[in-house]
């Protein structure tokens, strides 16, 4: 078996030399550039006159082709993004080349980055990049949870708790921005659960809450949840289930009952999976009901065992409809305490004298009405009729 694998690699290397995706574009032979993937596109624009060996099938390395190319050109430059994988190999087969000394190994390559590399190779210096004149005076515009986003209720409820919140990648990553500011750490998919368990096991004094989306839970959260139950963790896991894979463009997932091709299929239950993992405390909340959401979070944080809360409400952006009746702030009642602005809702504009709700943006989720201590926010008269 091992012998077959080795032989196959050797055969593939032979094949790679003949493969059409590994191609030499002969031009001026004073410089030959070996490159691959997107870097090739930049190379073609920055060095239009150079000879290029473009590798589309880079491993196992097409050594014969690389040698054939290198012997024909006066100087070899290797252009690759991040690790100097090709460059090290090319040197190892006895070919003199340059690469990392001119092409940075950190960050993405681009035409301007390679223009700097070219200038450095030719002993020229480029004029420094200018920042736009008023750039420093402009307010930052980070992405935000949409008006009516069901995740907002969970993050707002957590903002009242002295806990550590771990999370990962999805729309719920946006809970990290001010004013919600309720994610302490973000790592890879499923990391919300496993980091919560890690912190808990490492002796963290505060209670740890792990956040994960429904799609990410199915993708790589279940293993961590089982680990929590099996290894007697005490963290609280919240699955923010918006019935879709929102951030990447609303794809189906194992919980939605449809395949990616739109065919009907099973709809996996997060609650049942939690129970099957051995989590005894499994609760479901409707995140637009702030009072109950806060009550359940309080109870579960106090429990001396692991807990799973499923916060379930569909993504309004996918549903393409408003959550409820549009809200309005009665300025005669509003005391300007700005509590509603803590929701970080794009529909609530606090730039004026008193906060105002933008009727076009408001999705009618009603969270602001529930948290206003003076009862200044209600549905508009027309909506009530």
């Amino acid at each position: 078996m091992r012998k077959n694998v080795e032989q196959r690699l050797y055969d593939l290397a032979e094949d790679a030399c003949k493969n059409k995706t590994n191609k030499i574009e002969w031009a001026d032979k004073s410089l030959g550039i070996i490159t691959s993937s997107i870097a090739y596109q930049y190379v073609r624009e920055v060095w239009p006159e150079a000879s290029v060996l473009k590798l589309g099938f880079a491993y196992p390395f097409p050594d014969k082709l690389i040698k054939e190319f290198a012997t024909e050109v006066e100087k070899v430059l290797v252009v690759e993004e991040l690790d100097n994988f090709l460059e090290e190999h090319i040197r190892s087969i006895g070919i003199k080349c340059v690469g990392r000394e001119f092409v940075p190994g950190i960050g993405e390559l681009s035409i301007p980055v390679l223009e700097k590399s070219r200038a450095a190779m030719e002993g020229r210096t480029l004029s420094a990049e200018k920042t736009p004149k008023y750039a420093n005076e402009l307010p930052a515009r980070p992405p935000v949870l949409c008006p009516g986003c069901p995740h907002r209720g969970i993050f707002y409820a957590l903002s009242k708790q002295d806990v550590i919140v771990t999370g990962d990648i999805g729309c719920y990553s946006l809970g990290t921005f001010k004013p919600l500011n309720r994610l302490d750490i973000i790592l890879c998919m499923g990391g919300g659960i496993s980091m919560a368990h890690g912190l808990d096991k490492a002796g963290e004094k505060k209670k740890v809450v792990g956040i994960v989306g429904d799609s990410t839970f199915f993708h790589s959260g279940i293993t961590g949840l089982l680990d929590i139950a099996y290894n007697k963790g005490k963290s609280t896991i919240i699955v923010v289930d918006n019935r879709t894979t929102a951030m990447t463009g609303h794809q189906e997932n194992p919980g939605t009952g449809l395949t990616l091709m739109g065919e009907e299929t099973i709809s996996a239950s997060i609650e049942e999976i939690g129970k099957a993992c051995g989590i005894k405390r499994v609760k479901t909340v409707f995140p637009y009901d702030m009072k109950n959401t806060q009550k359940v979070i309080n109870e579960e944080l106090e429990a001396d065992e692991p807990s799973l809360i499923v916060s379930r409400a569909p993504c309004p952006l996918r549903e393409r409809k408003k959550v409820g009746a549009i809200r309005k702030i009665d300025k005669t009642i509003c005391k300007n305490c700005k509590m509603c602005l803590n929701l970080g809702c794009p529909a609530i504009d606090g730039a004026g004298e008193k906060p105002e709700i933008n009727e076009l943006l408001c999705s009618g989720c009603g969270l602001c009405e529930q948290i206003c201590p003076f009862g200044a926010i209600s549905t508009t008269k027309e909506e009530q009729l």
Partner: protein
Amino acid sequence: MSEQITSIVLAGVGGQGILLASEISARAAMFAGFDVETNEVHGMAQRGGSVLAQIRYGKKVYSPIVAKGTARVLVALEQIEALRFADYLADDGVAVASSQAIIPVTVSSGAAKYPQNVKQMLEDVFKKLVFIDAAKIAIDCGNIRAANTVLLGAMSNHLDLPMDCWYKAIQTAAKGKYTELNKKAFDAGRNYR
């Protein structure tokens, strides 16, 4: 870098229809017989963040990324986004900016201020500026959401793509009942003086 490549940079706020504007521009260039590359910010695009889309066309285009200082046109669907991405525009390039202001959460929560004299700042930064109330023109055409196409119309005056290519692009990218609205909005932008 090859001089025959035309670069377009579209800037705005997620949800304004920047990706559709990018799609229409790319198709118009494609129908005109050019090689086209595009590069867009997805995911964040519907979520209120700063969004950038880039289109490059020419006889042969390799990189989808526009280098700073090389765009022939910079189109901003929101006024201060033109200032944010001003450095993409070539020295002799044209900025087409909507006068629409969208207040970011950083401002509504009181953490930052939205500049007051944006028109003055735009005139200061851009030698060639088309400052246009695209939202109002779009409303007059029937729907504020067509503001993106109004701006494409205004932008088209500064590119070498024929009208029938633009119409064909609109027809294939904005289908059904939206075709007529977008054509109307495009014309209104193109005829804006």
